[in-house]
């Protein structure tokens, strides 16, 4: 597949995750099969049923600085840190501000700032609420902050779809460029929700792993012994650019961001469709939108969160969407190492999928000891070279699904 003028390419990437403070450290930890999940030893966690999480490896407040950190929720700090890395990685492109956009989102928004402000309200009164509380709690805050930092005027967007948000933001950015609204877009997702309310609220849904004694072994997608997801935090970001704009400035191109597919289950607010119909549709639509056929796909970075219900359904949907070609495909869940970054997940995992395509290697799914019945795709507890037997150029998929029944799949193709 060649590129035409409105093709979209990835020219920069950034990440800050439980595995590392940038893409390089995150990716090398993924290939090494390291877990970023730790015990939460703080006092506030002691009465919770789940006392483990993928806490970010690098504190973003120390990078953005004391004064800026006071005005930014932790999720916004992650977003800005990762966006700066992606922007620098892209070579800080010179672009007409009216042609520069932002599509950056969060699944929940600044929940830590909301809770902190509510404590102040109750204890000291409204006058003492931090006047930056509203821009800190709104889920579009990160998009706004990044647009301000870069002077972007093409539009700043924050599509919200729970744990599919980060992937949806990438898809929206692809459309902004394909439709001619922008030449360069910073896209990604972020989350900072490791706090008692969220852990309690997910635990009461029976969604979290309670493997408190073995934090590093708790996130185990597709393994028979899995018992729920592990909450993680951080952000993933990329610079998307029209192929024409990137070529004109001689930019390094990681991949073609070929397209995205969307569906909604229309079934249940928190349970996936029992036949995985929505998930399959999203992948099929992504391939169609990207103009990519199943025989090009070599790797899927799956949504698989380590919950009993969703993991197997997704594996079956991948099998169904790719048909016979699924047999060559290595399917990985990097959540086994990062935990589940909610609105950051789809973005971090798109970055991981692009790195897998670039290095031609699928990261492992750690803690996969006994694959569950019905996992009819190739999963591996070791890194695996991508199978070159398919049609070139090689392509990869990233899946992200969210409560509400949102399904998003993004396709990246080798340049």
């Amino acid at each position: 597949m060649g590129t035409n003028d409105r093709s979209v390419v990835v020219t920069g990437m950034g990440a800050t995750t439980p595995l590392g403070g940038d893409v390089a450290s995150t990716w090398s930890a993924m290939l090494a099969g390291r877990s970023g999940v730790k015990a939460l030893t703080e006092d506030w966690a002691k009465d919770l049923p789940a006392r483990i999480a993928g806490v970010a490896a690098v504190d973003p407040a120390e990078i953005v600085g004391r004064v800026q950190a006071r005005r930014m929720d932790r999720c916004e700090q992650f977003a800005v840190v990762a966006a700066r890395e992606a922007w620098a990685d892209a070579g800080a492109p010179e672009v007409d501000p009216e042609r520069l956009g932002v599509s950056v989102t969060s699944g929940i928004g600044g929940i830590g700032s909301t809770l902190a402000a509510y404590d102040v309200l109750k204890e000291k009164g409204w006058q003492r609420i931090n006047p930056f509380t509203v821009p800190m709690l709104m889920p579009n805050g990160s998009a706004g902050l990044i647009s301000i930092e870069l002077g972007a005027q093409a539009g700043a967007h924050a599509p919200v779809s729970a744990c599919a948000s980060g992937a949806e933001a990438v898809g929206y950015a692809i459309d902004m460029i394909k439709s001619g609204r922008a030449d360069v877009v910073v896209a990604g997702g972020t989350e900072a929700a490791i706090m008692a309310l969220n852990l309690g609220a997910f635990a009461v849904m029976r969604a979290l792993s309670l493997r408190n004694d073995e934090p590093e072994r708790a996130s185990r997608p597709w393994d028979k012994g899995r018992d729920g997801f592990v909450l993680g935090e951080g952000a993933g970001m990329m610079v998307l650019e029209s192929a024409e704009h990137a070529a004109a400035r001689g930019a390094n191109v990681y991949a073609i961001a070929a397209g995205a597919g969307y569906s909604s289950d229309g079934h249940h607010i928190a349970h996936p469709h029992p036949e995985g119909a929505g998930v399959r549709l999203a992948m099929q639509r992504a391939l169609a939108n990207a103009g990519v056929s199943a025989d090009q796909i070599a790797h899927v970075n799956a949504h698989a969160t380590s919950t009993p219900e969703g993991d197997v359904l997704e594996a079956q949907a991948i099998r169904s969407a790719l048909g016979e070609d699924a047999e060559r495909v290595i399917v990985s869940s990097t959540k086994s190492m990062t935990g589940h970054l909610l609105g950051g997940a789809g973005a971090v995992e798109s970055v991981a999928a692009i790195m897998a395509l670039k290095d031609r290697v699928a990261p492992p799914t750690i803690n996969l000891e006994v694959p569950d019945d019905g996992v009819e795709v190739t999963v591996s507890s070791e890194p695996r070279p991508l199978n070159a037997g398919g049609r070139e150029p090689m392509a990869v998929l990233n899946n992200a699904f969210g409560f509400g029944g949102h399904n998003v799949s993004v396709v990246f193709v080798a340049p």
Partner: protein
Amino acid sequence: MALSEQEILAGLGEIVDEIAGVPADEVTPEKSFVDDLDIDSLSMVEIAVAAQDKFGVEIPDDQLKDLKTVQDVINYVHKNAS
């Protein structure tokens, strides 16, 4: 015991440093918060609340909008501190 202008200035410098990241030694009486120290209206609210706590004065909104320079705040605190 009333605070001296020097003490108010020093206290205000600490607040502005903490909230807006402007070094305390740049907070001099003739400076305008908005034009010289680049402090926006949201940070000004935070500074006013911190000044109320530190100096024990009430600064109602209709007074706050008239406090344009560091000297204006010093005068206000000097006059109204209990």
